[in-house]
Every structure is written in C-alpha cells, then in structure tokens.
C-alpha cells in the first residue's frame, strides 16, 4: 500500500509522488533524529511516549521557559507558568500526511492558535515543506508566545487575542530570547591559518641622474 499526493515543485510543475510504508518510516526517523539535535536540552526537552493505536510516533515536547496556560474551555484568564508541554503524534503516511499536536485539556497554552479543546492549530500541511521539524518549531515558538508565529487571521481561540496582542505590543512577548532555545552549534571551526611570512623585497637601485 502506498501514499500519494500531488505537490508543486520549485519550478511550479505539479507532480504526483507516492511513498511506501517504509519510505514513511524512514522520513519520520530522519526527522526525529534531526529534531533531537535541534534544541538546547536546557530549555527544550523531547521525550518519546507510548504511541496510541494508529500512531507511529508520539512525542512530548516541553519548553522550560515562562509561558501562560488556560485550564478549561470556558476560562479566558491566562495563568503564568514556568514550563509548558505539548504532545505531537505522527501516523503512517508521514510526510504526506500531517502530524497532530495537542495540549492537555486542563492545561493548554493560552494562544490564539490553540483551540479551547487543547488541540494546536498547525496551519495548512504542505507536503515536502511541512514536517515534524516545522511543526515543533512553531509549537515551541508559540509556547514562549513569540508573536512571529501567531496567526491572528486564522483564530482558534479569539478570547486571548487582545491579551496576546497587548503583551506583544509591550514587548513582554516572547517571554525569552528565542535563539537560546536552539542547540549550540558544536561543530568545531577549522584551525586558523597563519599568514605566511613574506620576505621584504630587495631595495631598488639608486636613481640615475
């Protein structure tokens, strides 16, 4: 059994792509491995959870940074917290099929892009552009309330729109410097090349009169 979809390549030509189950697993494994190298474990931890029926991979992503949450679908008053967790699941057919993400129903992120049921809105899934990495990137940025990723034009929870905009205008959001979330690039730089000593040129002969 294969999964197929039509996607538009960089030249604007639409092409049909089919992937097998093993292709899907390979793509998911590669993206999981890349994800584990992307973030600084001091601020972002990623753990594997028991996959539910029909799921291939189930992750919990926790951001250890100031954030805000809501406790039920009726509440509109965000509560501050020092860490926030979201669960992400991928099923067979990835990366042609989208991943899904959600917060616990009683402790979900106060964000215009999170439904009151706790489900995270992950935007339109575009095969070969969207991936586990791009989704987690958006979720992590949303958890520090970085307004760069907030879509006010496609609201999932409009009750926190004003609150979010106000704090963004006061520069309270994002709640921490986003670049700190990423892993330090540990690839060593090549050794500095020492400049070769060039001998001084011979003095010119005296000018003839």
């Amino acid at each position: 059994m294969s999964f197929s979809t039509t996607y538009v390549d960089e030249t604007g030509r639409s092409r049909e792509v089919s992937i097998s189950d093993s292709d899907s697993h390979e793509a998911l494994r590669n993206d999981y491995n890349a994800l584990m190298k992307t973030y600084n474990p001091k601020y972002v931890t990623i753990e594997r959870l028991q996959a539910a029926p029909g799921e291939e991979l189930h992750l919990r992503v926790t951001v250890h940074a100031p954030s805000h949450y809501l406790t039920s679908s009726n509440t509109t008053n965000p509560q501050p917290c020092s860490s926030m967790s979201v669960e992400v699941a991928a099923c067979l057919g990835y990366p042609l099929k989208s991943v899904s993400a959600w917060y616990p129903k009683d402790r979900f992120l106060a964000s215009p892009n999170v439904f009151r049921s706790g489900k995270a809105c992950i935007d339109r899934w575009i095969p070969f552009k969207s991936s586990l990495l791009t989704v987690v990137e958006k979720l992590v940025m949303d958890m520090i309330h970085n307004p760069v990723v907030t879509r006010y034009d496609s609201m999932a929870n409009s009750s926190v729109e004003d609150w979010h905009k106000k704090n963004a205008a006061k520069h309270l959001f994002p709640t921490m410097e986003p670049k700190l979330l990423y892993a330090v690039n540990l690839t060593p730089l090549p050794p500095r090349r020492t400049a070769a000593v060039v001998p001084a040129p011979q003095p010119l002969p005296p000018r003839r009169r």
Partner: protein
Amino acid sequence: MDHLYNPLKLSVYRSLFRDKSVLILGGGAVGSHEAEYAVKMGFGRVDILDFDTFTLENAAKHSALVRTPEDVGRNKAQCVSDRLLPLLDEGGATNGIDADLCLIGPEAVAAYDFAVLCLDNFAAKMLFNELWLQIPRERRPIVIMDGTHDEMAQSVMLDGEEFCLRCLVDESWLEASAVRTSCSGPQVRRIDGEDAIVRTSNLASSLAAILSAEQLRAAVLGAPDAMNRRLTYTAYPHLELSAAHPMKKRGCPGCSIEPPHDIRFLPGSVLDVTLGEAFRAIAAALGTKAFELAVHRLSYKNIVYSGYIAEAVCPSCGKPVAVKKHEGRAFHSDLFCGECRAAKRPPQERTAHEEGRVLRAFTPGACGELLGETLFSLGYPLGAHLEVIERNGALDFLDEGKIRTTVFAFEGDAEKMHTVRSL
C-alpha cells in the same frame, strides 16, 4: 436443462469458457457490449459493477441489450445483468452490483479469473491497479483495460508480470484524474491547454469491447504472445489495426506495490461481521487481545483516506457533531451539525477549523460504541485486507523488530460479489 443454443453451431472450444468468471467494471458504452460478448462466448459467470445510471442521451452508444426508453434511469450494472439473463447458457450466472470501485477490496477482485476495465476515468483505473497489485501473484486475475479516444479504440491485456496499469498512463493525466476521459459521451478534455469536447461513436465503443473480448478469448485459449499486448484500432485517416508490446515505466509508483506476504482468512464477510466479532476471531487466530486493527486505507485521486471520523467540530457553529464515517465516505456537509446543514450556514471566516476526533485504528478495549457496527459500515470495503498490528511492548516504530503486522481477509467476500445487488 437443455442447452439454449445448438452446440453444432457454436465454437468447438466453447466448453473452455464454462468454468471461467469475469468481472466487468463499468456497464456503459463499452461495458454493456463487453458483457454481451462475454456471455455469448460462454463464460460461466459474468458480473458487472457500476454505480451510474443509464440516460437517454447516451442511448446511441450502449449495446442493444439495453432497452430504450424502458431502461433509462436504471443502474447500469443491474440493468445489463438483468438483460443478460435470457442469454445465459446452462450453468451460467450473472450479477450486477450497484457500487463504485471504492467499495470493493482486493479479495473481491481476486474472486474472478478475468477483470475487464471499461472505466472512463483514470482515478478509478489507478485505484483498481492498487487493488489488483495487492492480490498475491498466484491469485491475480488477468486484467484487460480498454478505452476509446475519438474514433480510436484500444485494449491492453496484462498479467502484472511485465508492467502494471499505471505504466500505461502518462503521469500528467493523473493531475485531473477524475475527469471522464473516455467513452461515455461528449466529455470535456483539456488538449494543449484548450478545453475540447471528446466525441466517440458507438462503433469505437463496441470496437473497444470487441478487442477486449478477443483478448479474453486468446487468454482462455492460451494463445501464444497474446499476453501483455496492446491492440489499437484506428478509423481515420486510415483503417488500421495494430498490436504493440507496452514497456514498463521507469520508477513507476504502481509497480512498487507489493502484496502482503501472508493473508489469513476468517469466516464470514465484511458485510455481515461486526467489529466485535472480528476482534474475537482475530484474537483467537493470534492468541492475544493486545492488537489494533488499522482503519481501512483508501487511496483515491492522489489522497489517502485512512481515518474514521468519530466526531467532528461543526465548521459553522463549533458544536461537536457525531459523524461516524470513514474519511473516504464522508462529505463536507457531514461535518456540519444538523441545524447548520439545514440552514446552509457557511463555515466561519477568520477561524481555524478543528479536526475533531479521528481514529486511525480500532482496539478491542477502546471502541465500545462501535463493536456492534459491521466492518463495511466502518469503512472496510467488500474484499478488504485488514491490517492487524501487534506492538509487543514497542513504544513506537523506532523500537524495531517488535511490531508485527498480520493481514486478514474474509472467506465469504468472494461469494458475496456473486450475490450482492448493491453496496
């Protein structure tokens, strides 16, 4: 019972056809002719599958089996099958099934010796290719695909060993694969960026059926070099009949489809067995209750539908809606609550739409409310392959070597194809 026909006036090899069965997919301009020829050749079983109905505007193209105007409005498959009854020789049988191809699975196709595709769109042909290639090689029927293009008629016979149906199709045709492109009336087709009406005559349609019937006969008689050949009849500018040997397409996605290594059969049929009964039968076969049954995967028109929508969120008012339908059988209107659907309210603008509760697998413990539903109503087609996954303590797919997948099918599905009138 006496023979209907005088044996002395029939072909000497007619008896070879008596124990052969053929499934004709599509009962329209080509399919109605094909069914007529198959019955007259002496096939023991001729079944037809089609979801469409006869209309007066296409009456000039159908076989004379179809009566005008009495049969207008009747389902094509059932009507053609009924009209074949007086032509059946001793021991012959026919059935017309009012259904589309999405409602049948690989084991339904495997019930026949031959399958003839008289379909008018590539999406359906590619779906059939998927079903066909999921059948283990030793049980795969021989497939004949025909079609017309203006006044040209064509038929290809293949056994799946050298190339598949997808190899015969240009990938660019699949961009709008559901557009009807063949033989059932004036159709609009894009040629060089321009919309053009495609016209096909009764002669082209019946010739396509004759070419297919000729290939059917060659396959039954075991004619050498008949397999994996394409016959093409061209009317204009020169009358011409040619034969060619199509080639395998490089990197063909269809050819990469492999049948399951092992299929275990359970008693009953997808149409009758409930989810609870299936769980009990699978548990007895596997010796464990720790498994999950993957929701049916339907690959159609470049989309794979692999979820069962238990609950949706109304895109208009946001209320939860109990949908209880497979993704491939649900329409957009099913996602609206009754009130919004009746008032034809549009989806909310400037609001993201929530997915709802979509199941990817059924488990014995977690699907209490669905245990009484038949597998067919849960989205499994007649003749489905059911994928059962045992995790054996694996956290996820990264725990390699622990997860085991077993494919099950139902013994009674093949027989149902010969008796069921609609799906």
